[in-house]
């Protein structure tokens, strides 16, 4: 078993309205920034012990399916890498 960090990124499906992102974009514009579009996403970092990266990814994917994402409105991506040595 090796320590991995799986990363699950959950974002709204293309075309689903994101009022929080729109509000954030407007706030940036009020600060004088120029931008065309802003999208937001949630990122979850999950430390877990697994035999290999594929197993870590598979388990994180199950977590995304069961809880972290809502398939009606979300798409998600999963990746896994050996955990960074703790400082």
């Amino acid at each position, binding site marked *: 078993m090796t320590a991995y960090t799986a990363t699950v990124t959950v974002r709204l499906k293309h075309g689903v*309205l994101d*009022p929080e992102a729109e*509000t954030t974009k407007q706030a940036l514009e009020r600060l004088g920034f120029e931008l065309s579009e802003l999208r937001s996403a949630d990122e979850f970092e999950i430390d877990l012990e697994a035999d290999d990266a594929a197993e870590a990814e598979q388990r994180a994917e199950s977590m995304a399916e*069961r809880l972290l994402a*809502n398939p*009606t*409105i979300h798409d998600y991506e999963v990746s896994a890498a050996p955990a960074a040595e703790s400082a």
Partner: protein
Amino acid sequence: MTVAVVQFGGSNCDRDAVRALEYLDIDAERVWHEDGLPEDTTGIVIPGGFSYGDYLRAGAMAARSPIMDEVRDAAADGTPVLGVCNGAQIGCESGLTEGAFTTNKSARFQCEHVHLRVENADTPWTAQFEVGDVIEIPIAHGEGRFEITEERYDELVANDRVLFRYCDADGNVTDDANPNGSTHNVAGVLGERDSVAVLMPHPERATLPDVGGTDGENILTGFRA
């Protein structure tokens, strides 16, 4: 025989629901989610509030608590289940009903009276109405925008699963009358059975005559059927 009003940490409309039901002479009691449903449960309310602080997504945590397995089983057996506001979010998150309730288009918490048009009058919740009737009920939510894919929406309509739509006082379903940007103004939907319904507006806040309108009464009497 009793209507179980399921209380999660952060529920805050549970007492209102019990009081409104008892006013209608419908026996009701609050049930802490960890205690499970009482044996004599004849109906279930999933009340409004902010269960688990709306962490992750409104309703996401409560929807995955063990009592929801019991609620799904009871719903499948024909026990009437009504999810209101946070209870509607929990209902969608738990798969009792299709779609999802997410952030209002305004990005603001909307607390106001709205008009609803009855879309299906052949359910326990709307048996006192005709299709097209307009009722006035309050909303109070930040995440009430009904979202669903167009394909699934077409199925909802084809299967007559839309219960209420936001409308103006004359029953016109317009963008202006849509308080939160819900897809096609949908305010409430039915589950697989007509006895399972979720809606963002609060019928229990429009039942006692001392607190304003009583248009919610005829929804809650669905528990008598």
